[in-house]
């Protein structure tokens, strides 16, 4: 982490024309952050889904679908990789 910050800071300070975060790295960041967001969202939904399944087995399918819904965030973020 720290080692990777140093070149970025240098690049900014030198005022070179190269961007601080190159496009590929930006895309990678976008996917990573989106995945983080999806994970946070799934935490709550997953807990609720497990609770519902524990009470009623037939909720398993619905619970699973609702749990992975935020996964679409990551798929959408993946588009960025191809755009760049």
């Amino acid at each position: 982490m720290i080692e990777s910050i140093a070149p970025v800071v240098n690049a900014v300070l030198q005022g070179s024309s190269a961007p601080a975060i190159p496009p590929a790295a930006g895309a990678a960041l976008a996917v990573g952050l989106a995945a983080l967001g999806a994970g946070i969202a799934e935490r709550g939904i997953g807990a609720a889904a497990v609770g519902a399944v524990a009470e009623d087995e037939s909720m398993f399918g619905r619970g699973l679908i609702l749990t992975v819904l935020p996964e679409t965030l990551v798929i959408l973020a993946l588009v960025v990789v191809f755009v760049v």
Partner: protein
Amino acid sequence: MSLRTDAKRGQGSNYEYVVARVRSRRASLFDDDDYRKLVRMGTGEIARFMEETEYETEMNALGARYSGIDLVEYALNRNLAKHFDDLLDWAEGQLYDYIARYLRKFDAWNIKTIIRGIYSGASQTEVEDDLIDAGEFDERLLEQLLAAESIEEVVETLETTIFGDALTAAYGDFEDSGVLVPLENAVDRAFYEMLLSGLPTGPEVDSPTGLYIEFLQAEVDFRNLRNALRLARSGADMDPAEYYIEGGRLFKERQLAQLATDTDQLVNAVRESPYGDDLEDALETLEDAENLIDFERALDVALLKYAEQLSNRYPLSVCPVLSYILSKEREVDNIRAISRGREAGLDSDEIEQELVIL
């Protein structure tokens, strides 16, 4: 101390999990149709009906020892205990504290039952069947209490719990007077004092926590109101201030003493209070019929409605859990009323009046 509180503290709350389970259980409570059927049944039929529902396990477990109305009664208690114990098992962190606060009411009930059992010389199994193991006391503590031979022993066993100080203080009075009233009052008082102590101060009025505190205050206020009315009606020459519980929003201690003597003034005071709108119906029954039972039932309905409203407004908070607890309690009360009413030979209209249904 064998309480779970310490282990649960310091964790995050798991609202999602608990609320999902609670909502599912809430949906499987008896509905209007079930009640309509139950009201028309005889005691034997009620027992059979219950065997086919939620209460199956308990009915089967107790079926060998009891029959008829007792079986229904004990099965209800056991089932209630099971469900509420589950709540405490699931909940973590802050949520656990909120739930335990309210469920300690059953601890108070158990202590009173045990003390009364010892006082009246009932056998250990008799007392045990009357306990509702839904509060924070675990089985070991309850067994210890059951094994106690004298009331003094019970008081000693409870020394480390929240009821300890109050009971120790009241024990002297009990020894002097020989009646249980001081001890029972001490237990109730300890419960109600714990209900409101140590809650976060000054939460936002509209946050779930704020509303939960408001709800607990309402509980205390309604209790004060009931006590005041009962004292006023019974005409007993007692100072209502002695039974006053602190923490409510409605009355101050002195005010209550004054109002208890005059029902009209009391009704007016409540009408001008923040509860005025919610209790409008209840107050009207009180004024018209001069009937305390109807009024108390209207209070229950008002409380239930309020909890229901909150649970829809704040899905991820303690409110849905609270609403479930209240509904479950009402269901148990209703079934008990039906079966008792049947046994006493009331007809279905009369029984229906006794029920608290939203």
